[in-house]
C-alpha cells in the first residue's frame, strides 16, 4: 500500500508528525506571503554622522566655516591644483555633494558642472541669487543658429561675485540663513559670527573703495577677466587680457598688449598670482606696475580668505596711492 502513487499513497506514507510539520511549513509560507512587502516609505536619513556643508569654492567654504556652529563639517572637495570654476568632479565627488546636508552654490553660472549634475534641490542654496538684479556678462557671448529654432546664445555671466565685498556679504547672509535652517538651535552663535564677518567684510570693502577712489578714472589692466565685480563695485576701468601667471608672454601677447595700451593706457595691472620675472620686466618696461590680486577661489597655502583679501587691498591701495606703501 505504501508504495502506491498519488494522494492515497502519500497519505499512507506520511506519519502524523510529518503531517504536522508540513502544516506548520504551509502556515509559515502563508504568513510570509501575508507579511507587508516593499521598501519603507520614509525619506532616507543621514544617520548619526555630523551635518555636512559642501561648497563649490573656497570663499563660500570660508564663510561657512566662520559662521557654522561647532560640529558642522564644512567641505570644499575640489583638488588644490584646479580652478573650481572649471573643475569637473567625478561621479564619486558628486556623490559626496549629494550626501551633504547643505550644498552652497555660488550662482552667476559659477562651477559649470552644477548645471549638468544631479543634485538634491532641497539642499541646494545658490548664494548669489537675488543679490543683484542682473549679473555682469563676460563679453564672450557667441550667438548661433542651427535648425528651425532661431538664434540662441550661450551667454557667459561673470562669476567672481565675491570680489565685490557687498555681494560677498550678501552671499554670506545666505550662508547664515541656510545654516540657521540646518542648525536652528545654534541661531544665536551663527548670528554673532555673522556680525563679526560683516565687520571684516565691510572694512575690506571700505579699503578697496578707498584704493579705487585714489586711482579715480585712470585705466587699469587685468591678466584675466575675473575682476568684473571688483571693477563694478569700486568704479575701476579694467580691461582684461588672457595671460597666465606661470607662462611667458608670447610675441603675439606683447603685440596685443601694446595695441590694448594704445586704447587703454593703463599703469597698473592686476594679476591672479605673481607673474614670471620676464613678464614683470616686460610690463615694467611699459610703465605698468604688477599688483597681485588673488581672487582666492582656492584656499591659500597660508592664512585664509580674509588675510588674502587684506593683502590684495593693501597691494592695490599701495599701487593706486590710496594708502602709504608698507
Amino acid at each position: 500500500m505504501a508504495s502506491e502513487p498519488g494522494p492515497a499513497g502519500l497519505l499512507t506514507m506520511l506519519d502524523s508528525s510529518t503531517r504536522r510539520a508540513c502544516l506548520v511549513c504551509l502556515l509559515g509560507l502563508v504568513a510570509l506571503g501575508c507579511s507587508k512587502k516593499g521598501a519603507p516609505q520614509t525619506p532616507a536619513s543621514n544617520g548619526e554622522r555630523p551635518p555636512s556643508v559642501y561648497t563649490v569654492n573656497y570663499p563660500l567654504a570660508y564663510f561657512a566655516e566662520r559662521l557654522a556652529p561647532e560640529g558642522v563639517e564644512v567641505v570644499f572637495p575640489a583638488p588644490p591644483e584646479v580652478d573650481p570654476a572649471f573643475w569637473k568632479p567625478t561621479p564619486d565627488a558628486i556623490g559626496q555633494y549629494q550626501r551633504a546636508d547643505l550644498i552652497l552654490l555660488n550662482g552667476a553660472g559659477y562651477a559649470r558642472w552644477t548645471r549638468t549634475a544631479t543634485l538634491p534641490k532641497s539642499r541646494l542654496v545658490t548664494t548669489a541669487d537675488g543679490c543683484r538684479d542682473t549679473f555682469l556678462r563676460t563679453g564672450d557671448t557667441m550667438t548661433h543658429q542651427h535648425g528651425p529654432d532661431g538664434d540662441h546664445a550661450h551667454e557667459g555671466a561673470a562669476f567672481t561675485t565675491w570680489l565685490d565685498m557687498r555681494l560677498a556679504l550678501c552671499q554670506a547672509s545666505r550662508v547664515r540663513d541656510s545654516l540657521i535652517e540646518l542648525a536652528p538651535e545654534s541661531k544665536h552663535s551663527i548670528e554673532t559670527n555673522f556680525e563679526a564677518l560683516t565687520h571684516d567684510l565691510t572694512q575690506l570693502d571700505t579699503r578697496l573703495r578707498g584704493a579705487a577712489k585714489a586711482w579715480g578714472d585712470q585705466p587699469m589692466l587685468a591678466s584675466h577677466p575675473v575682476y568684473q565685480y571688483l571693477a563694478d563695485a569700486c568704479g575701476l576701468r579694467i580691461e582684461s587680457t588672457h595671460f597666465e601667471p606661470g607662462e611667458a608672454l608670447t610675441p603675439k601677447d606683447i603685440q596685443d598688449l601694446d595695441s590694448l595700451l594704445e586704447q587703454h593706457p593703463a599703469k597698473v595691472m592686476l594679476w591672479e598670482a605673481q607673474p614670471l620675472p620676464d613678464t614683470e620686466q616686460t610690463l615694467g618696461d611699459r610703465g605698468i606696475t604688477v599688483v597681485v590680486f588673488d581672487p582666492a577661489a582656492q584656499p591659500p597655502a597660508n592664512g585664509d580668505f580674509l588675510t588674502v583679501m587684506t593683502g590684495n587691498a593693501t597691494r592695490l591701495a599701495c599701487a593706486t596711492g590710496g594708502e602709504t606703501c608698507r
Partner: protein
Amino acid sequence: MKDSLYLAWRYLHHHRAKTLLLVLSLTVFLGLPLVMRAMSAVIQQSLMARAESTPLLLGKKGSSLDLVVEALYFQPKGIEALTAADADEVDATGLALAIPMRTGLLAQQFPLVGTSLDYFAFRGLESANGRALATLGECVIGAEVAATLGLKPGDPMLTSPSTLFDLAGVYPLRLHVVGTLKPSYGPDDRAVFVDVKTAWVAEGLGHGHQDLATASGDVVLKRTDGTATANAKLVQYSEITDANVDSFHFHGDPSSHPLSAIIVVPADDKAGVLLRGRFVNDSARQLLRPAQVVEGLNAQIFRFERVLQIIVWTVGLATALMFVLVMVLSWRLRADELRTMTRLGCSRWKAVQIMGAEVFLMVGTSVALAAFFGFVIAHYGETWLQNLVLRGS
C-alpha cells in the same frame, strides 16, 4: 477511512478524463470569486498605499484621475504640462518640498521618468547595484526593468523616439545605466529614472553640438561678430559623455520647461492645508490629494466587482448543479459495481464512504488549486494587475 480513500483514489485515477473535467470545473467555480476578491483587494490596497504615501500632487486642471495615474503609476495619459516655474513657486513658499515629475516618454518600452534626487528618498527607493544619478545622460532602472532587459550598471539604454514618423523630430538618446534599484513591488520597479534635465534633453528641449567657435567652414554658413549660423551638417550628440557634457544646453527660459506633475511634500499638516488653500481658486492648476482620487477609483472598482460577482455566482451555481448531476448519474451507472461490492462483503456504509471520499478528493483538489491561484495572483500579480487596470482606464 484510509482504505476508502485508497479505493476512491484508484477509481478517480482510472477515470482520469472525467475526474480532470470535474476538478477543473470546480476549480473555476471556486477560484473565480477567490481570484476576483484577491485581485480587487490587491488593486485597491496597492493603489491606495501609493496614493496615501503621496501627500499632494500639483498638476494642470483637467482629469484628476489621469493626473494621478500618470504621475504616480507612470501610465501615459497625455496630461497637460506644468512648468518648472510652478515647482519653483511651491519651493519659494517654504511650506513644502516640490519634487518634479516628467513622464510620457519611454525607454525600451519602459516608462522614462524625469525627476530629482529627492524622489528616491521620498519613496524610500534603495539602490541594489551601482550608484545614484550624478550627471546628465545617466539613468537608474527599477528592478523589473533590470530583470526584463538584463541590464546592469555600465550598460547603455536607448530612449524611444517620441516622434516615430517625424524625420525632423527628436532622435533617441543613449542613456548610461549607472544603478539598479531594489524591488519596491510597485510602479517604480518598471520605471527608468533620469534627472529631469535628461528628460528634457530626451524630448528635444536641450541638446549638445560641436563648438561653433571652432567648427569647420563647411558647417558654418555665416559667421559675423559674435554670431554664427550653422547648417544641417552640424553634429548634434545623441549620447552624453564626459567629453561633450559641457556642450549640452537648453534653449529658452529654463523656468518654462515642462513638468507633467509636481509631488508636493508639505513640511507638516498645517503647511499642507495652507498650500491647498492657495490653489483652491487657481483657474489653471489643481493641487489634489491622490488618496481622495484613488478612493473614487476604488469605489468604481468595487461597483464593477459587485456586478461581476453576480455573474460569477450564477455561473457557479450552474457548475455546482452540473457537478451534482454528473455525480448522481455516475452513481446510477455504477449500480452494478456497488452491488458487486456489497456481495463481496462491503457494507452499505463503506460504499457511501468510498463515494464520499471521491467527492472529497475532487472538491479538496479544486479548493487547493483555487486557493493556489488566488494566492499567486494576490502576491505576485500586483504590478501586472495594476497595469491591467490603469492602462484600460
